[in-house]
């Protein structure tokens, strides 16, 4: 189930962040989204992903200190979504 969600998330993130020339398959689910070696996202991109989670999954990120852990990678976002959906 998490594999399906990761696949969906990769496409949604590329669309939402208008990442040119990157296919969903090229996004390593476990690679860091920010900084060196990742997709090189910035602070505006974080806000876009926050909006994406709210719009597509009804999940609101309230505690900003959780951000770095939740948004570390596509996989960590997927795990957070599944965790929230259980509650």
């Amino acid at each position, binding site marked *: 189930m998490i594999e399906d969600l990761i696949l969906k998330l990769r496409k949604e993130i590329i669309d939402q962040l*208008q*990442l*040119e*020339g990157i296919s969903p398959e090229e996004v390593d689910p476990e690679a860091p989204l920010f900084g060196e070696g990742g997709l090189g996202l*910035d602070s*505006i991109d974080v*806000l*876009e992903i926050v909006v994406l989670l*709210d*719009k597509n999954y009804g999940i609101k990120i309230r505690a900003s200190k959780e951000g770095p852990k939740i948004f570390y990678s596509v996989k960590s976002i997927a795990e957070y979504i599944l965790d929230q959906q259980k509650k």
Partner: protein
Amino acid sequence: MELLITRHMKLQKRRVWLNGAVEYLSEAGSVDQLFRDMYRHYDIDYPKFFKMDNLCKLAFLSTEILLRGTILLGKYPGEEVAIILENASSSLEYDQKHVESIRDRNKYFPSPSLFVYTIPNIMVAEIAIRHKVKGEHAVFILEQFDPGLIYHYVSELFRNQQVSCCLAGWVESYGDHYQSFLFVIEEEDKIRAFKGLQEYVIFDTVNTEKLFKGKSI
């Protein structure tokens, strides 16, 4: 102290002029396609470009073309380089897109990446980030290009010794209409060593307007 226009470019109607000569001509059918084609033609590697609004894309591409192959800004500390621009439509296109995106209160998801482009000064920020410019900057919203305002404002910056170099001009974008005219202003005594390599233009209102209109000096 004489101020000189040491480099200038213009982009309109799918043509690019650099220092008065046409150097790029496109057959693109839309503004989006034109900017995409230019990005590839000039071999630019800056993925953030694709997230910009058209005003920023125009300002970014124009600056890339203007400074391409030069170490122009590298000659000066970032704090001594200014960016002074004018345009007519401000960021109206993205202001309208933002308003449209939040019209439905039941689907209220304002986009941060849309909202960030709802001020025209963001085009200066995009140029400044790319070229490490940290000096004075301003964007004036006017009905049409005003070379006199730019001349007096920029001259004052040099007179007060606030800047050593200035990137100035007109960057206008709304819908299918786009037009940019950018130029670099430097002090004559600081570029003396390079004199003779190319023809420079004395920076004044008349010459600036002539360059904007494509007339010979």
